[in-house]
């Protein structure tokens, strides 16, 4: 919580940053508004708090929600890591990292363990997170009931009254059609035994990592203007049936670089003949394993 609650005082942030920008781009009033939403979100795990999303110098769908949340949490001594599908070196991750370097003049890292704030799209790092770390998720569609009910007022009521039968109808249909629960990404969870939440399009393999995690998990949806959160050490369970329990397993392969059979893998085509191999989607995890060997 410390980082979230440590409100920035304008005066001592001016030091070496680019004069054109306020610290971390957003003005202080906006940050205060977002922090209020974040604190409310942390108090009601999994509940979607509306906030008024600002124009960011990047289009919606490129992490504007996550960036606004991160901006509002940043302090001068934070160290930030940005990943896109687990990788630190994709264009998107690099540009968001540069954005914070430029507008907040703070340290960046690729090492999960050294980051105080990690902004992510579609993954949770393999390395266990610790207390005082913050994981910020970029969220495209925050509403898990949206597939069924497009009206905001109605979904709000359904959440308020825990009218969640339809979520299991979706899983029922999945099993009936495929013989098992086919949903592999954005697999819905129940937070603190109360609110059903969309974990953003992370693989279901990552779902168990949300449960009882020592770090703070914050979710920002820019276009949809919602923020939600999981406080440290909160119970997060994936929806399932007694006789079709949630199964987070992944493809039974090893990383062809580091040999790990515990990490989530990306399938890649390795040559013109279409040969395929599997490598860790978490590049930092893979690199660390190689360095330690």
């Amino acid at each position: 919580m410390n980082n979230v609650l440590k409100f920035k005082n304008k005066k001592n942030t001016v030091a070496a940053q680019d004069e054109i920008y306020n610290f971390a781009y957003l003005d202080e009033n906006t940050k205060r508004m977002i922090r209020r939403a974040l604190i409310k979100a942390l108090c009601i795990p999994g509940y979607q708090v509306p906030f008024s999303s600002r124009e960011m110098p990047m289009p919606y769908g490129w992490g504007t929600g996550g960036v606004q949340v991160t901006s509002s949490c940043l302090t001068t001594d934070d160290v930030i890591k940005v990943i896109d599908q687990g990788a630190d070196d994709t264009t998107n991750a690099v540009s968001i990292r540069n954005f914070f370097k430029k507008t907040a003049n703070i340290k960046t890292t690729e090492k999960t363990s050294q980051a105080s704030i990690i902004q992510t799209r579609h993954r949770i790092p393999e390395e266990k997170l610790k207390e005082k770390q913050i994981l910020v998720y970029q969220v495209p569609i925050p509403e898990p009931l949206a597939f069924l009910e497009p009206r905001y007022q109605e979904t709000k009521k359904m959440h308020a009254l825990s009218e969640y039968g339809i979520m299991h109808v979706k899983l029922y249909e999945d099993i009936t059609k495929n013989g098992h629960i086919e949903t592999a990404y954005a697999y819905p969870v129940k937070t603190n035994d109360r609110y059903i939440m969309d974990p953003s399009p992370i693989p279901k393999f990552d779902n168990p990592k949300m449960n009882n995690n020592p770090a703070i998990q914050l979710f920002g949806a820019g276009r949809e203007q919602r923020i939600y959160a999981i406080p440290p050490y909160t119970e997060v369970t994936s929806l399932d049936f007694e006789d079709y329990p949630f199964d987070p397993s992944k493809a039974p392969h090893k990383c062809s670089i580091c040999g790990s059979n515990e990490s989530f893998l990306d399938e890649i085509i390795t040559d013109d003949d279409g040969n395929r191999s599997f490598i860790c989607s978490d590049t930092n995890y893979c690199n660390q394993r190689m360095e330690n060997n």
Partner: protein
Amino acid sequence: MQPILSVHNLNKYYGNQVGCKNMNLTLYPGEVVGVVGESGSGKTTFINSISGNLIPDSGKILIETGNETIDFLEISESLKRLLIRTELAFVHQNPRDGLRLDVSAGGNISERLMSIGQRNYGNIRQTIFKWLDKVEIDKSRADDFPRTFSGGMLQRLQIAKNLVTSPKIIFMDEPTGGLDVSVQAKILDLLRKLVRELNLSVVIVSHDLAVIRLLADKIIVMKNGEAVESGLCDQVLDDPQHSYTQLLVSSVLQV
């Protein structure tokens, strides 16, 4: 024995237009009350007002759950919605209004089960098959989508979807309306069978006296938004007191 549902002096206006006024109803467990009247007489307004679909202007609705008497118009929105999806059921005239068309037949039947906390896929499947059987739809259609069903099948599916959790009170607005006569007869037979077998407590609306005579124990005759006559079905239909009921009986039942 206490009534499971009682309605006192219920009024609903649409602006200055009367929807229904000064309506009373008493429903005992295992009883079927039929509401009959010509088009525009206020039947739909009445049944919607006592089932939570419409908010009446005034009146009192008491529901007996077994543990307590619930003042339906005074309880919170959340309790009301909970009641609607557990203790009450509503069968619409148009089955499309009561079904999810992009969810399989079985999925439709499963929803109420899962909303009351059932989490065993195998058991839910068995319950679905049992109910398809009860409403005379072949089990093999469980995984088909409602859009591939005929009108009569859709209505039977809607009935199964509503009855699967054994609700205390079932409301039906013209459940056989909009169907071919032969299909109507089959749905009526089915409803009669279910009412007997399951000892259902039902409020049913129809403009068709024959439907009411076949299913109902008690009858309320409506005209211009008001009840002109009510009582035991056989008594009212055999010996109608009000001139409007006499007209209805003589014009319909002779056929």
